[in-house]
């Protein structure tokens, strides 16, 4: 049986190999320091008081009893944030944005979701802080709430924000609504396309609110020194994002804040938003000592940023031969309490796997009384893929066309124009589909009663954004690689590999360090599958800078022109005199006497897209008596462009697939009729365990990205897009029932069976 395959086109010396990660030993011995392991002398512990209501007006807050409680050193509310003393007139256009950001951190006038922070306490230990929370008196006036995305869109729905008006591509509606934004894109002639189709199917789909489920809860330790400098130690996907967000809410110049990244216990997009940092900072300012804030698991569920629930309508027209003529969709996603759901990415990704002449996509960003949603792996795309790929499977069934052949017939390729306009460069979807068709899994006949097989595709653009890298050459020839990208899943290794490859030196001779915001240029988050791609690129650039400087040192030593020297095989040589050559290490030894150490540096902002595509195959069996679905075999295929460290690429593919299986079958926020989450623990929010799963087979396809020196595309996102539809399609095969609402719980399967009189 196959397990992990890599379909490589180009071989390199270091890129594409599987060395042990530099931070590995610290992480298997418990020595690695994560956010909660920060320990500054004299640190106080903070606890946050949160709203018990999904929607209410704050009438009064009295903190005096809490302040008087023994062991309590500081209590804060929104009154302690700069917003409280700034006027609307003073802030002008900035007001709305700052109010949202500041209120999200600590609510001033209204609470918009259960778990919304209202006050915070710093005390000598967490137990004391917790006891003090109970002494804070808050008078609320409860308001009607809305948590369902479609309910929220209706006329007359309770308004989450009284003054929010729909923005329709630059035009603001005149009456308030929960729809923050509407966008629409189209190409070709949709009506004509439907008229030409032999078969037109239209369906509606819904998905539930789910959480990224990282195992490490949010944390932040802050120390606001008496000289005004604010230090923050935290687990985040982006130190510069934390710095910017704290600077905004606290009205500080960015350089007054230093954010030091601790090791991070998973993020998947959920550790980009800064929830605790400003709270810990203000508590530290008030108490004069460092303050550490940690979320409990329930707080993580109720007050960090889950991924949105969605409602989607998809309509597709096809010819009898399987050629798609038109696609159309309306997608609405809940943003949570503040605007900004990923629905616009969803409409961009929805049909990105297909080459269709006519199409129209509409997206609606809707606020509801839930925590503000955050990014979760390929934000927006997994929901869209569930809808589109499920409908395509239904079409394949009606036309009796093999689902892979159907997708090959319609697949996007180089030159395909997407609905929103741009034309695809070299992409690897066709190669992924071919790899799926040729895979042992797909060729093996499905056996056994109540079993089904499903296939689905997924897409994420993988954009670049800014990264900075500095590297210094030590006198022993070891290169210190300094970067600002935090390492969530092995990027120290993958960026060191690209550095070593470019310099022609050994992987072991590159020593990566991740530094704070004072020690490196701006670097965007680790997320969106960008780190190996963009920070890797910065490292390649900085290594080229080093090479140039090595050449000029050799020129000095040999007293010749730089033009006579070339950098080859990890060293420099004279182009015409064979005798004159230096290995990297030998030349490094001479740096001290030829002008000192060499520093290479680079800041990049790649403009191209990585364009990641994935195809998954799922086999399931469904127990007809209980409705329980078991995944019995699963294969994930993905175009990595070039897999820098194949083991970690496989890890991303497997991890994404399993999160997707959880999203498909189990995971969901339950709300009671008041809009309160009923299941904020890992016991009741059921994520897959090792017992629920088979091995996840992988195939890494390598179609080099023309927009990266080693062809890297980025791999973290696309892997979570196909599983929901792949599993749903397999369940349809096993039961004869199409499940159009996630998660596909045993209850829903049994209901469908009974309704059809089959059970």
């Amino acid at each position, binding site marked *: 049986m196959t397990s992990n395959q890599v379909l490589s086109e180009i071989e390199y010396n270091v890129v594409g190999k599987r060395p042990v990660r530099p931070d590995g030993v610290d992480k*298997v011995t418990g020595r690695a320091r994560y956010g909660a392991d920060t320990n500054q002398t004299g640190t106080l512990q903070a606890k946050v008081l949160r709203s018990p209501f999904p929607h209410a007006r704050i009438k009064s807050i009295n903190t005096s009893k809490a302040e008087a409680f023994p062991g309590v050193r500081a209590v804060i509310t929104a009154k302690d944030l700069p917003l409280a003393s700034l006027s609307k007139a003073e802030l002008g256009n900035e007001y709305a944005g700052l109010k949202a950001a500041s209120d999200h951190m600590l609510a001033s006038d209204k609470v918009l979701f259960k778990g919304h922070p209202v006050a915070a306490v710093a005390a000598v230990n967490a137990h004391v802080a917790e006891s003090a929370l109970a002494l804070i008196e808050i008078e609320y006036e409860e308001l009607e709430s809305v948590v369902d995305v479609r309910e929220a869109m209706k006329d007359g729905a309770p308004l989450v924000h009284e003054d929010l008006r729909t923005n329709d591509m630059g035009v603001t509606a005149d009456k308030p609504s929960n729809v923050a934004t509407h966008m629409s894109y189209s190409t070709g002639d949709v009506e004509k396309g439907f008229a030409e189709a032999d078969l037109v199917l239209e369906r509606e789909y819904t998905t539930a609110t789910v959480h990224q489920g990282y195992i490490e809860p949010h944390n932040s330790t802050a120390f606001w020194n008496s000289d005004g400098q604010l230090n923050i130690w935290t687990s985040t996907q982006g130190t510069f994002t934390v710095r910017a967000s704290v600077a905004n809410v606290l009205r500080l110049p960015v350089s007054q804040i230093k954010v030091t990244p601790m*090791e991070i216990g998973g993020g998947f997009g959920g550790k980009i938003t800064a929830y605790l940092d400003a709270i810990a900072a203000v508590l530290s300012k008030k108490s004069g000592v460092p303050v550490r804030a940690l979320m409990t698991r329930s707080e993580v569920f109720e007050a960090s940023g889950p991924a949105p629930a969605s409602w989607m309508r998809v309509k597709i027209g096809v010819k009898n031969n399987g050629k798609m003529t038109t696609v159309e969709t309306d997608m609405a996603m809940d943003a949570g309490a503040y605007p900004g759901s990923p629905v616009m990415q969803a409409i961009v990704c929805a049909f990105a796997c297909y080459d269709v002449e006519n199409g129209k996509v509409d997206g609606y960003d809707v606020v509801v009384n839930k925590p503000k949603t955050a990014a979760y792996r390929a934000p927006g795309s997994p929901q869209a893929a569930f809808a589109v790929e499920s409908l395509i499977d239904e079409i394949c069934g009606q036309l009796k066309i093999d689902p892979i052949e159907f997708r090959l017939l319609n697949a996007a390729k180089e030159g395909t124009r997407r609905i929103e306009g741009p034309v695809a460069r070299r992409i690897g979807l066709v190669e992924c589909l071919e790899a799926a068709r040729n895979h042992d899994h797909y060729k093996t006949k499905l056996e056994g009663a109540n079993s089904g097989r499903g296939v689905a595709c997924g897409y994420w653009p993988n954009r670049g954004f800014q990264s900075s890298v500095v590297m210094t050459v030590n006198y022993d020839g070891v290169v210190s690689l300094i970067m600002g990208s935090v390492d969530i899943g092995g990027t120290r290794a993958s960026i060191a590999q690209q550095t070593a490859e470019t310099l022609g030196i050994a992987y072991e001779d590159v020593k990566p360090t991740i530094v704070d915001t004072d020690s490196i240029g701006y670097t965007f988050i680790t997320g969106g599958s960008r780190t190996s791609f963009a920070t890797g690129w910065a490292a390649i650039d900085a290594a080229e800078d080093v090479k140039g400087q090595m050449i000029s040192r050799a020129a000095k030593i040999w007293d010749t022109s730089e033009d006579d020297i070339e950098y080859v095989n990890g060293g420099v040589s004279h182009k015409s005199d064979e005798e004159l050559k230096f290995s990297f290490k030998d030349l490094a030894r001479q740096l001290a006497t030829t002008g000192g150490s060499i520093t290479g540096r680079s800041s990049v902002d790649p403009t191209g897209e990585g364009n990641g595509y994935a195809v998954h195959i799922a086999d399931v069996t469904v127990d007809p008596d209980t409705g329980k679905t078991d995944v019995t075999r699963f294969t994930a295929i993905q175009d990595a462009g070039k897999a820098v460290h194949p083991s970690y690429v496989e890890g991303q593919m*497997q991890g994404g697939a399993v999160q997707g299986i959880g999203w498909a079958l189990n995971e969901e926020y339950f709300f009671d009729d008041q809009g309160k989450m009923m299941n904020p623990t890992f016991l009741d929010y059921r994520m897959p*365990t*090792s017992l629920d799963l088979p091995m*996840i087979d992988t195939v890494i396809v390598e179609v080099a990205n023309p927009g990266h020196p080693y062809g890297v595309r980025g791999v973290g996102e696309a892997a979570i897009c196909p599983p929901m539809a792949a599993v749903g399609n397999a369940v349809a095969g096993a039961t004869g029932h199409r499940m159009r609402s996630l998660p596909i719980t045993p209850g829903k399967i049994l209901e469908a069976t009974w309704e059809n009189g089959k059970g």
Partner: protein
Amino acid sequence: MAVTHVQTTLNGDEINFLCEPRQSLLEVLRDVLGMTGTKEGCNDGNCGACTVIMDGRIVDSCLVLGVEAKGADITTIEGMASPEGLHPLQQSFLENAALQCGICTPGFLLASKSLLDQEPDADEGRIRHWLAGNLCRCTGYDKIVRAVLQVSKAK
């Protein structure tokens, strides 16, 4: 609050600490003893990040009170490697890329050690069953199960 004196064996050494009756063993390890290798993921017994071995059995240290450690024999991640080097499971986790973010790793390593100590030839099914109390959100478990299998005599 009144504190209790506890004498226990931790990673082979006899140690003493003072703790409040309400403090969990996890809290004692991390906050009293400064041993932060044991991780907190949920504090309610549902993730296994805080797994330690206590008197030969794996326990979620967030569900054990510090005072219950009296007279016990406890192994944490800090006690897994020896001066001679890493434990074979630690080595195997590294070689098989069985960790991404690594927050679940100490818990998985101790749970796996306890399994192989008792059943040196555990097979895939047994490993999956045994590790079902430890959540990993990054890896999809595939590489973790393979890493344990490599050390198991089952193969």
